[in-house]
């Protein structure tokens, strides 16, 4: 509760981006199934730019 409040206040003071991965840092590796049960890894995209788009829930307007 108190930690949440402190974290909310810090976020307001420092800006939302403090919670994101830093620009210039190494993107964390991942290995996860896609909607066709194909394993997708970050390493598959090495040598290309990749847009990683987090969305809240399938079949909603976004």
């Amino acid at each position, binding site marked *: 509760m108190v930690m949440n409040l402190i974290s909310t206040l810090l976020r307001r003071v420092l800006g939302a981006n403090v919670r994101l991965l830093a620009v210039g840092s190494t993107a964390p590796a*991942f290995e996860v199934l896609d909607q066709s049960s194909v394993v997708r890894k970050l390493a598959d995209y090495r040598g290309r730019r990749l847009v990683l788009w987090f969305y809240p829930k*399938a079949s909603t307007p976004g």
Partner: protein
Amino acid sequence: MSIVGVSFDSVESNRAFAETQAFPFPLLCDVDRKVGLAYKACETANDAYPRRITYVIGADGKIEQAIETKDAGGQAETLGRSLLS
């Protein structure tokens, strides 16, 4: 440039979403929130949803851009603008 979507939905839910929307890119099913946690899109493995965050990862594997928006339209618009700039 490649695009992947990430949500905490099951393979079945994302398959239905992908079929309905005909997305020309894969949707990752991060059911255990490992990707979400690694990319700070959620705080715990029990979070129901990831935040609307978009990362652009360079060909060298480094984060080029990190964008958070509060609504879906804003996410697309902000990303579009930053990729064109």
